[in-house]
C-alpha cells in the first residue's frame, strides 16, 4: 500500500475499518466454530453487518443497504427457516467427512485461490478496465443510490421490468412444484431411468421404492402380487444419497 493512500485515510476511517473488520472476522470464525446451527446463522448475520459497514466506509451506500436487506434480512432468515424446519436440535457430526479427501482438496484449493489473488494483485496491469464507473457515481447528486435509481428507471428500465416478470414466474413455479394434487398416488410402476448412473435416494413411501435395476420394466407386478423390495444398503446406513432400493424378482 503506497504512502499517499495511507495519508488520505483519516483516523475515523481507520478506526471504523478496524472495528468492522474485527466484527467481520469474529463473525466468520464464529460461523465455523459454533456447535449450534442457529448460533452459526446469527454469527453469519454479524459478519454480513460488518461487511455492510465496510461498504458504507467505501461510499457504496447502495451495496450496504442491499447487503443488510437481502443477505442479512432475507437469506439468513431463509437459512433459519431451513434449520428450524429440519429440527434445531439435530447435531451434525462434523468429524465425519461426507466426501473422502474433501478437506485436503479444500485446503489445496484455498491455497491456490489465495495465490491467484496475490498474483492478480501483483500483476494488476493485465486487467485493463476501460473507464472507471466509480467516478461517475461519485460526481452525481445524491450519491450512488440516486444514480442507481436513475439508471433503473432510464437505461435499465426494460431489464428492471423484466426482472419483475422473472420474480412472478419464480413464484408460480414454486407453487406448481410445492403443490401436490391429493388424488395422485405414488407411482406403482416406473419405466426405469436407463443409463442414469446417479444414485437416487429412496422415496420412503411404501409404493414408491420399487425400481428394477436391470433396465426392464414390468415383470414384478405382472402376476399381481407386490414383490418385496430388497434394500441394498441398510436404512441405517448414514451415507447420503447412497441408499438405493432394488427389487429382485427372478
Amino acid at each position, binding site marked *: 500500500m503506497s504512502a499517499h493512500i495511507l495519508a488520505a485515510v483519516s483516523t475515523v476511517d481507520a478506526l471504523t475499518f478496524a472495528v468492522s473488520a474485527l466484527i467481520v472476522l469474529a463473525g466468520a470464525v464464529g460461523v465455523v466454530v459454533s456447535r449450534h446451527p442457529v448460533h452459526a446463522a446469527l454469527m453469519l448475520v454479524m459478519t454480513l453487518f460488518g461487511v455492510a459497514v465496510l461498504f458504507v466506509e467505501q461510499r457504496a451506500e447502495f451495496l450496504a443497504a442491499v447487503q443488510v436487506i437481502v443477505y442479512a434480512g432475507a437469506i439468513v432468515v431463509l437459512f433459519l427457516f431451513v434449520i428450524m424446519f429440519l429440527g434445531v436440535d439435530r447435531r451434525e457430526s462434523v468429524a465425519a467427512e461426507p466426501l473422502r479427501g474433501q478437506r485436503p482438496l479444500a485446503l489445496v484449493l484455498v491455497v491456490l485461490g489465495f495465490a491467484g489473488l496475490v498474483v492478480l494483485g501483483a500483476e494488476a496491469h493485465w*486487467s485493463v478496465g476501460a473507464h472507471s464507473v466509480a467516478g461517475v457515481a461519485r460526481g452525481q447528486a445524491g450519491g450512488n443510490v440516486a444514480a442507481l435509481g*436513475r*439508471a433503473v428507471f432510464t437505461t435499465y428500465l426494460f431489464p428492471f421490468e*423484466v426482472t419483475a416478470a*422473472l420474480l412472478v414466474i419464480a413464484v408460480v413455479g414454486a407453487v406448481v412444484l410445492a403443490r*401436490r394434487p391429493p388424488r395422485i398416488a405414488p407411482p*406403482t410402476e416406473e419405466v426405469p431411468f436407463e443409463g442414469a448412473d446417479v444414485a437416487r435416494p429412496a422415496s420412503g413411501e411404501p409404493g414408491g421404492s420399487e425400481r428394477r435395476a436391470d433396465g426392464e420394466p414390468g415383470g414384478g407386478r405382472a402376476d399381481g402380487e407386490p414383490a418385496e423390495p430388497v434394500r441394498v444398503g441398510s436404512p441405517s446406513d448414514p451415507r447420503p444419497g447412497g441408499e438405493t432400493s432394488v427389487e429382485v424378482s427372478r
Partner: protein
Amino acid sequence: MSPAHLLTAALSVSAVRGGTLSLPHIDYLTILPELIFLGGALVMLLHSALIRRTMDAATSTSWALSAATAALVASLVQWYEVSAHGPKVAVAGAVAFDGFSVFVTILVSSATLVAILISHSWLEREGVRGPEMQALMLVSAMGAMLMGAANDLIMVFLGLEILSIALYVLAAFDHRRPASGEAALKYFILGAFSSAVFVYGIALVYGATGTTNLPQIADFLSRNLLLHNGLLLGGLALLLAGFCFKIAAVPFHMWTPDVYQGAPTPVTGFMSAIAKVGGFAALLRVFVSSFGLLRADWQPAIWVIAALTLLLGASVALVQRDVKRMLAYSSINHAGFVLLGLQAATSRGVSDSLYYLFAYAFMALGSFAVVSIVGAKGDGNHRLDAYRSLGRRHPWLAAAFTVFLLGQAGIPFTTGFLAKLAVVEAAVEAHSVWLAGIAMVSAVVAAFFYLGLVRLMWAAPAADAPVAGAPAGAMASVGAATASMQPAERVSAGALASPVGTAAGQVSGSAAGSPAGAGSTSGEEAGSTSEETEEPALSTPLGVGIAIALCAGVTVVFGVIPAPLLDFAHQATLLIR
C-alpha cells in the same frame, strides 16, 4: 443508420438534467410479442384463480393458443416494420429490433403454438388440470424471445433465466413419475451453476470493456486495441460455457439425455426447440456482433466444441435404447451443426444457423409429438421396441415420424437436408473444411440410427412373434447398426425372467392402474390389449394431430420449395455485423 448514431440515440435518453428524470421512449411494437406472451400467461393464471373449479385443459389451451397466435401475428407485423423501416435499437438500448430478432420471435411463437397443441393432448390424456403448464410454456418462450432480441448482456441473462426457470418447473411437471422430478433437479442444479458461470462472464466482460451493452462492447473493441486482454478472454470463455450448457454442446451436454428422458414428453419437445433457439440466438448475436473483432480468438474454441458435439452426439445416439434419449443425443448432434454457422462467423453463417434452427425446431417438435402419442397413458412407453412395426398398426403416425427422422437425417426434399447443406457450405466458405468434413461424417453416422428407427417401424417382422423373441429381435435390428449386443442381451434376459412377458401394454396398464380415479377402466383396457397385440392402442387426439401435420408440412413443403424460407432466413440479419 450507423451503429454510432444508434448508440447516441440510445444513450441520449438516459441523460439526466437537473434532477428531472427523462424517461426513455418505449416503442411498444418492438416488444409486443413478449408482452403478449407474458400477458397471456398472467391472464390464464388470473382466470384460473377466479373460477371455482380447476381450469380444464380446453380453456387453458384456448387462452394459450390465442396468445401464441396473437404473438405470431404481432411478430409478422414486426417483420413488415423491419423490412419497411430498417433495424433499430429500442427501449433505451435494451432491445435490438432487427431481422434477426424478429426471425427468432416468429420462430419461437410458431414453435410455441405447436408445443401448446401437443401439451393439450398430453393434459387431456393424463387427466392433469390447471393452466400452469401452458402458462409456464408461454413465459419460457418469452424468455427465448428476449434472448433473441437482447441488446445488452443483462437482457441476455434475464432472458436466459426466464427461459430456464420456467423449464425447470416444466421438467418436474409430471408428479407421478419420480424420473420427472429427478430430471428437474439435475437440470436445475446444473442450470443454476451454468447461470452463475454466465454471470461471472458478464462481470469480466464488463470489467474489460466498461459496458454490458452489446453495440457499445463492439464499439469499444473497434476503438481500443487491448494489449492485455486476459480479462476479456476469460469473460468470453465463461460466457461461452454458459451458452454451451443451454444449447447442450459437448462438454456441457451431460444433463441433456436425463432431462429429455425424465421430463414429460411435450415439455421435452418444447425444451428441445425453444431452449436451443433461445440459446443459439443469444450466442450468435453476442459472439458475432459484439465480439466479431475477436473472432480469431473464439473461432478455434467453437471449432473444437462443434467437432466434439457433432461426433459425440451422433455416436452415442447409436447405442440408445430409449427413443427420448436417442432424440436427446440427436439434438446434441444438431447443436453441432448449428455451431458450424457460428464458427464461420459470417453473416451468411448466421443466416444459415437460423435456417437450421427453424428446420430443426419443427422436426424436433414433430418427433416428440409422435413420441408423446406412442408413450401412451402414463407417458412411459418410450423404449425403441414400442416402435416395432408401428407402420402396420398406425401407418399415418409412422409416416409422419418417418418424415421427421428422414428430415433429421438430412435426406433430400426435407428442410433438414437443405439446412445441413447450408451450414456445411457456410463452413467451407469460411475455410473450415475439416470441420465441414467432420460434420458430414457425423451426418452419415447419425443416419444409421434415424434409418434404423425407420426400419424398425416399417420393415420389422409381424407383431405376433414369440414374446421373448420380440424385444430381442427388435433390438437386434438396431444392434446390427450399433454393433453393440449388450442391450439386446439385457432386454431378452429381462423378458425371459418375467413370468407373463414384459410387453409395453403391461407397462402402461399398470402405470394407469394406480389408485387414481380412472384406475379400474384403464386397467381393464390395458389388460385386454396386452392379450391381443402386446402394444397399447394409441389414439391420436386432434390437438397433437394438428401439431404433427403442421410440423410435417413445414418439413416437407419448405424442403421441396426452399426458396421462401431461405430468403426469409437470409434477410434476418444482425443489426451490427
